[in-house]
């Protein structure tokens, strides 16, 4: 382990204000007493233009191998200083910013002796950390200018065409014989009323003629390797297995509605159908006059499946209204628990359905409607929770709104690409405000494979992903540390000392980012950190009894020395 031997120290007085609360002179003498510190300069405002010029001049004249800078909190100008010193020939990480302002002078303003003593300790701690900081070489990753999209539903098609529009080579993989996914089976879309076939046509028109998009129909994903910038995805199907190399992977594998077997006499009585069967009937132009009852939450918002599938109410509203408008003599009832129509457009759709004469009846989950009949469905008995009365509706058909279930393939894909899925099998977002990203850099999800959403929303998500992928793959290369916690906030991956690693696997099991694997070394297996997945949380390091795996931002030797200096 090499200690830094030429550390340059800078003390900022923040316009001389810090000098009122602590002794800058004492701090300077302290700095010069630290082993390896070979100069210490005081300045009044390092963050300002003249301060930056001063820093530059000092660093370029004296060539320190580390910079210890005491001043305001690192949250203030830490990133700026890091950027600057790396422009001046030093590694951006060979910098330690010590907070003697917010965390010291300002909270001990009434006690200069305390503030001075503490500032000196903080400086010693900063020196301890900096002098022992070792950085492994940041891996440089080539970025292929291509993306592989799995699934050609509206989300996948939108993503593919948008990415091709940004100049990326796109490989679109579809397990069926034609593109379109569920969009092929939808009659009209909400809230616009556009025909599904029309939207499908427009999306296809952006894909089929494109020279940048290759479509693989009747192909599936057999396996995947690699990492951001260079994924190798194995396909099976067609003439034989093939491997596609791509810079990013977009999952748009969709979802399918629950088949309501065993619910509301589905499969027992003729005339009880699921919503998608109604869509087919609408597409075929079948006569839907007579009396129809829609039953919402069929198989959702129940203990075994507590989530709300979001789109079932809007779809039912759209279809109920359609039936009323097309067959004015028809009677349509919509039996619901909560009308999930948030926002402007959907609430408007709800009003439109009411205006069209759809009759709404609210039921409570304790008293679900009873569907009755002999061979064919004849009536639905519902306890209207608003009036408290039980009503028997003579009906010709029952349409069950069932939830979307995650594609069963998702689990397999998650395994191949080390993704996380939620309790229901939908892919997890990386973070709250990173909705289409996953824990694996370079892998994105959009559309209903992420969560039930409308066709319009799926298309929007596909476009959103395209923006992210275009930005990701714009440069020739990226650095592993770019993928840290969040883009732009550097994360330093953990490092393994292979000789000290016993291969016990504790770290591998515990890593919340699934960033550790095991690899052969010297006749045994040792831990290996995936530098783009690791976010430097330190869980692995604290579990390692041999100290073989460490985080770079605060290794054991750095921490122990800091502890020793804290109250010296």
């Amino acid at each position, binding site marked *: 382990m090499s200690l830094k031997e030429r550390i340059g120290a800078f003390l900022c007085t923040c316009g001389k204000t810090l000098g009122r609360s602590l002794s800058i002179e004492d701090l300077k003498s302290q700095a010069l007493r630290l082993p390896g510190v070979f100069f210490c300069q005081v300045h009044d405002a390092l963050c300002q233009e003249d301060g930056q010029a001063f820093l530059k001049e000092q660093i370029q004249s004296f060539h320190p191998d580390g910079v210890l800078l005491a001043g305001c909190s690192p949250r203030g100008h830490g990133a700026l200083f890091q950027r600057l010193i790396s422009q001046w020939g030093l590694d951006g990480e060979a910098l330690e910013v010590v907070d003697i302002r917010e965390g010291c002078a300002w909270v001990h303003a009434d006690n200069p002796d305390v503030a001075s003593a503490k500032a000196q300790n903080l400086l010693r701690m900063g020196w301890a950390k900096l002098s022992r900081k070792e950085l492994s070489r940041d891996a440089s990753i080539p970025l292929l200018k291509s993306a592989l999209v799995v699934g050609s539903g509206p989300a996948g098609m939108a993503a593919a065409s948008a990415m091709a529009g940004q100049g990326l080579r796109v490989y679109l993989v579809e397990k069926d014989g034609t593109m379109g996914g569920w969009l092929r089976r939808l009659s009209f879309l909400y809230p616009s009323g556009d025909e599904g076939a029309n939207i499908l046509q427009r999306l296809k028109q952006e894909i089929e003629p494109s020279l940048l998009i290759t479509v693989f129909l009747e192909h599936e994903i057999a396996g995947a390797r690699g990492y951001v910038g260079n994924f190798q995805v194995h396909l099976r199907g067609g003439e034989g297995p093939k491997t596609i190399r791509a810079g990013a992977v977009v999952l748009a594998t969709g979802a399918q509605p629950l088949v309501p077997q065993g619910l509301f006499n589905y499969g027992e009585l003729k005339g009880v159908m699921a919503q998608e069967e109604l869509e087919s009937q609408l597409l075929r132009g079948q006569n839907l006059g007579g009396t129809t009852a829609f039953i919402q939450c069929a198989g959702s918002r129940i203990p075994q499946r507590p989530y*709300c599938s979001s789109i079932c109410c809007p779809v039912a509203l759209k279809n109920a209204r359609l039936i009323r408008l097309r067959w004015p003599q028809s009677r349509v009832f919509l039996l619901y628990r909560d009308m999930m129509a948030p926002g402007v457009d959907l609430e408007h759709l709800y009003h439109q359905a009411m205006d069209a004469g759809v009759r709404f009846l609210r039921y409570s989950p304790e008293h679900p409607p009873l569907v009755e009949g002999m061979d064919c469905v004849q009536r639905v008995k519902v306890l209207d929770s608003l009036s408290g009365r039980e009503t028997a509706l003579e009906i010709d058909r029952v349409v069950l709104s069932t939830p979307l279930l995650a594609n069963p393939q998702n689990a397999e894909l998650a395994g191949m690409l080390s993704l996380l899925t939620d309790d229901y099998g939908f892919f997890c977002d990386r973070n709250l405000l990173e909705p289409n990203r996953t824990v694996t850099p370079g892998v994105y999800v959009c559309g209903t494979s992420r*969560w039930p959403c409308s066709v319009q929303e799926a298309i929007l998500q596909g476009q959103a992903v395209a923006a992210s992928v275009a930005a990701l793959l714009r440069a020739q290369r990226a650095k592993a540390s770019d993928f840290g916690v969040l883009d732009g906030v550097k994360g330093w991956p953990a490092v393994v000392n292979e000789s000290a690693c016993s291969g016990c696997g504790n770290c591998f099991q515990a890593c919340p980012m699934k960033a550790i694997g095991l690899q052969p070394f010297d006749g045994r297996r040792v831990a290996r950190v995936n530098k783009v997945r690791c976010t430097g949380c330190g869980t692995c390091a604290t579990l390692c009894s041999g100290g073989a795996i460490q985080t770079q931002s605060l290794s054991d030797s750095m921490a122990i020395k800091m502890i020793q200096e804290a109250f010296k």
Partner: protein
Amino acid sequence: MTGSALIIGGGVAGIRASLDLAGMGIPVHLMEREPFLGGRLLQLDRLYPTDHCAWCPVWPLLRQVGSHPLITIHSSSEVHSIQEEAGAYQATIVHLPTYIRGERCTGCGECLWACAKKSTVAGREGPLPILRPNSYVIPKVFAINRNLCGECPGCQEECPFGAIDFKMPQETRLLKIGAVILASGFDPGRLEGLEEYSYGAHPDIISAMDFEAWIAESGPNAGQVLRRSDGQKVERLAFVLCAGSRDRRFHEYCSGVCCMYAVKEALWACQRSRDLWATIFFTDLRACGKGFQEYVQLAEETGRIQFIRSRPGRIQPMGENGALRVLYEDTTQRNTREMIVDMVVLAQPIIPAAGSENFASLFGVDRGRERFILLPDDKFLSPATSQSRVLACGCCQGPADAVQSVISASAAALRAAEILAQRRAA
């Protein structure tokens, strides 16, 4: 440069769109009328359904925006006028003076302390004219609100960097823009018209946005849930959803986010106070997004949050600083009941931000139903407005939560990039 984009609004949608465009190599002008970026999100305490603090997911985005070479931030700025020429826009942006020179301000705060001391001495109450940037906002410089400022040179004398300049002029910039993204966000709607709720008649009938600030850890009571009237702890809390929304008298539409944020606020109030019981009066509990039903279950599991399907008919203050009587029809029991509570939170509607009317007319963009920016149906495949080079994302085009705003912002950025590419080719 005709190859630049203008993004109007520095909230989470504007921030996301600017990062996406800059990431794609396109220069961006990000315009924000306040001195700091962050918008409404930074006024919140927590976000549903993860309970992340509101700044935590936004902070890294803000840092990137602040340091990206392709993003120019125009804070304390307004669009003065737009001219169309040769298929592009010439935008005149006005930078309103903040009287503090950004390049000289180090955030030391000496000005603020001087001003605070002077105000105390003078016996003045109310907000100080000096706005302090929180440790995570961008731009990280103080700003002075001239309307509140008496222009004594107190702060100027204290500033060690000579950053305060009362002679700072308004500055005008001319920008050549190829595509525009409207991300101007929302304003909270008014509650004054709802006479049955007596808003304004009692200090403990409070709007949801005010309540969130009131019980925030960084708020005036350090997280305690107290009555505004007499400072006592709130033990019985009521939330009234759809106050002014789904109401033919005011806003017919659903404001989308209120059900979830009411659950969030109820959960947080219960966490902050072990003796608190909350009732949420709702019409339809619209918890349909990813993770939302589980969040509602969390609320139910506290055992101290109950949900009543009802839209209360009346809220009556029981005397000055007294309790509040909520009269409602329990729709499942079909009887009229009353509940006495210490505080009532009204979930006010979301309306398009005040500036959006101005932007709409400046760019000749149609507004739709309910005055939100219209995304015409025939543009099903992109978030474009009635003007082909103007896009809209986030709450300016309809109620949306943070996640939806971010998704629409990225889609708008993509479309803006396509528009600019066509221009460059043309």
